[in-house]
């Protein structure tokens, strides 16, 4: 280390082995203690569908499911998720769990640049798992931590509303 003062780095270069079940598969990786879960997912596991927008839990772009609940992956260190079941947009897509939401978002063009969309879908999935028939007001309230600069939100609310109605009518869920 060319005479470099070790204390300057603190423990930044020390890594910890963590294990997750990501999108149904067992994964182990070496992470620095300071590495956030979103960086770990994007950089180490190449799951780039999860996005970093504000790095402080305000925008919702980084939402993933941890043990079935929507969590901000930018507010969590990767080491804190050790042992957890993590589902990202990639896994939710492959399992078909949000296929109806994705189809309705597409049909109504409830996205433009798409950067907020994975987080929106994770949150919409969470909402519909808690409330079968949310009102528009409840949908807007549930999305109040998901920032979208492009759409003006209305089509997103419409799409979630339509899926909630279709699911209720279908009785499948």
């Amino acid at each position, binding site marked *: *280390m*060319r005479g*470099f003062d070790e204390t*300057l*780095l603190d423990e*930044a*270069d020390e890594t910890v082995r963590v294990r997750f079940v990501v999108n149904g598969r067992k994964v182990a990786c070496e992470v*620095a203690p300071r590495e956030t879960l979103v960086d770990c997912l*994007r*950089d180490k596991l*190449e*799951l*780039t*569908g*999860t*996005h*970093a*927008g*504000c*790095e*402080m839990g*305000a*925008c919702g*772009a980084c939402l993933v499911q941890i043990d079935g609940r929507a969590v901000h992956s930018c507010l969590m260190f990767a080491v804190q998720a050790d042992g957890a079941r993590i589902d*990202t*947009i*990639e896994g939710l*897509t492959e399992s078909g769990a949000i296929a109806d939401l*994705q189809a309705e*978002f*597409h*049909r*109504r*063009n409830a*996205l*433009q*640049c*798409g*950067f*907020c*969309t*994975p987080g929106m*879908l994770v949150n919409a999935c969470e909402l519909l798992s808690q409330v079968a028939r949310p009102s528009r007001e409840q*949908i*807007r*309230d549930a*999305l*109040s*931590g*998901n*920032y*979208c*600069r*492009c*759409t*003006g*939100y*209305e*089509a*997103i609310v419409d799409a979630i509303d339509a899926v909630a109605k279709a699911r209720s009518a279908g009785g499948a869920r």
Partner: protein
Amino acid sequence: MTAPLTSLDRPNSYIGRSLPRPNAKRLLAGRGRYVSDLRLPRMLHAAFLRSPHAHAKIVSIKTDEARALEGVHLVATGADLATICTPWTGTLDHFKGMTSAPQLPLPLDRVVWAGQAVVAVVAENRATAEDALELIEVDYEDLPIVVDIDGAREADSPLVNPGSVSNVCFRSQLDSGAVDDAFAHAAHVVEEEFSFGRHTAVTLEPRAIVADYDPAAGMLTVHHGTQTPYQFQDLYSRHYGIPEARVRVIATDIGGSFGMKLHVYHEDMAVVGLSILLGRPVKYVADRIESFVSDIHARDHRVRARMALDAKGEILAMDVLDLTAIGAFSTYPRTSVVEGNQVVRLIGAPYRFRNYRATLEVIFQNKVQTSQYRAVGHPIACAVTERMVDMAAAKLGLDPFAIRAQNVIADDAYPQTSPTGYRFEALSHEACLKRLQEMMGYDGLRAEQAELRKRGIYRGIGIATFVEITNPSPAFYGVGGARISSQDGAIVSLTPSGEVRCLISVTEQGQGTEAIISQIVADQLGLAQEHVKVITGDTEVTPHGGATWACRGAGIGGETALQAARALKRNILEIAALILQEQPSALDIIDGDVVDAGTRNRRLPISEIARIVYFRSDTLPPGTQAQLTVSHHFAPQGYPFAFTNGIQGCSLEVDVDTGFIKLLKHFIVEDCGRVINPMLVDEQLRGGIVQGLGAALFEECRYSETGQLVNGSLADYLVPMPMEMPDIAIAHVDTPTADTELGAKGVGEAGTAAASACVLNAVNDALVPFGAAVNSIPITPARVLKALKRF
């Protein structure tokens, strides 16, 4: 040969149809490919040390410790990059007398705003690069700072640029004459001073760039989250001395842009230089605080305006002073004076009066640069004009709809030239006004307002007419010497299997460029939309063009695609005619088949023509050289701009105890000419309106007296979120431009143009019973309470 554009019942008629975007499914599946996702072999990461001072001399920079840190590959200062990058200056020739200091990627000896990048570190990963930043010592010597408009204009003000005589970047005057006379003879005069806070684009994906210089090939490839790849190809080529053909800029998926990502940023230029110095790919993604302190800001205007009217409420004249404070530099290459220029030229635009005078003064200060962001100048011009019209209406006892109906340019009076020189081909203010009044249920809203006031509930109703600049010709930038194209190019091919590929210079930011281009090409050629593949955003493969800015994609890019598709169709039918021994004029293409034009009887599929041309040209008559690839360019001619118009309305409620404003419902009637995809147009309007509503109520970049941005995070800088935003009702009036076959005009900025004006008028309408008024944007609870003398 070509059926009318609007007939939706003929086969393959896609123009005018609401269809989902074919390319959106990838984004929904988390398969977007944003520059921030990109990882290249041997890629390194850059981070920047930023100035903590708004204005200071750089005395010394110590980088030894940073250079010694394991994993650090390069530490570069201004001097290092100045050896390979030529400086740039953000002026344009048609803004006579404007000045701006030359800029370099990193400063040599002086910092001019808090947050300016000073030293770059390139390391194995971003975290290591940021560790190294902490090991750099920069010794600064404070210089006097300029952080407000009034201070900057004083004779003894400190100077942002010490060599200059004042802090004025640009001054201009417009005067159509007889303004003093009109005011002297006016029955009524209204007068007000307005202020518009700084705000910024806050794209969800921050600025992102990966520069990849290959010294062996002498080739620079830049993966850049931008709207305008060709502009950057030109700039990287010229400032780094690399032949244009060896610079490739690739703009893939981008997480929002809104005008913010088409300017030259110091960090982006630096990253290109860092890659050249290292011969390796270098990536930089701004984090959120970096975005707030280094993305361009917009607005920051103070406007004093007067309006003269006759006894009946006819507007006679306006007299305006617009002061706008930019940064320490004018932004390159589009400058920081376009917004002010558009403010003074768009004020009063919907109305008939002839006597207009305006002064614009653009002032330097020690903050990050301002420049073009969605609806450049429009929200300010619209808010000033529309608030004055409402003030005049109140003075004369006229209804807001009535005074506008009396004063807008009549729908049958076109063409018209505004007192500021804008030429309007055809607008539809009267039709839009009428439609909005019906759509809002205006009389019902007024009755409800009166009823609720009795119960101490204060609702406001506001309307705002607007004119939007779209489809710009070279009059916008080209005439000023900027190498920014106003034409577009397309290459359309029939592939060997009978599908169509269209490479086009307009770019996709999620607004649906690729969708509408495929609709136009499929419609004009006569095949199913899914058989048209559109490719955008790569200077190596798509022809040079303006790309996306100033609402030009549909109007200019769309016309380019239309003309290119028609040319390819002629070529296909020429070969079909040879094969079928017919005249080309007797044939048409429907659903991918060549048919008899008269009977529509199917003759042969175009895939068969492609097969013969590509693989059995020996069976064609001797001398036949089939051209199944067409390259076509289109430059707008006729009117210098295709102006659009519309009107917005809103209903809101003011809580007079807390100053909080609840938006209840928003309305817009808009005329963007031919609508190619109604669903996408409505999305543009809604998204644009919500950006305008954010500006109206929440968004402001707030600075301390020492020039520090104090709210640079998404917790402190408020953006519109779903809970606060209303549903938005939309209606259209269609006045196509006759300058193109397609007839489309732009629509991306219409929503933002008038939303804040509309809210300003509605809030003031709600405050009427208190004799209180607000004339500052954003309209924060504190400002409302201050107006009510309750704070």
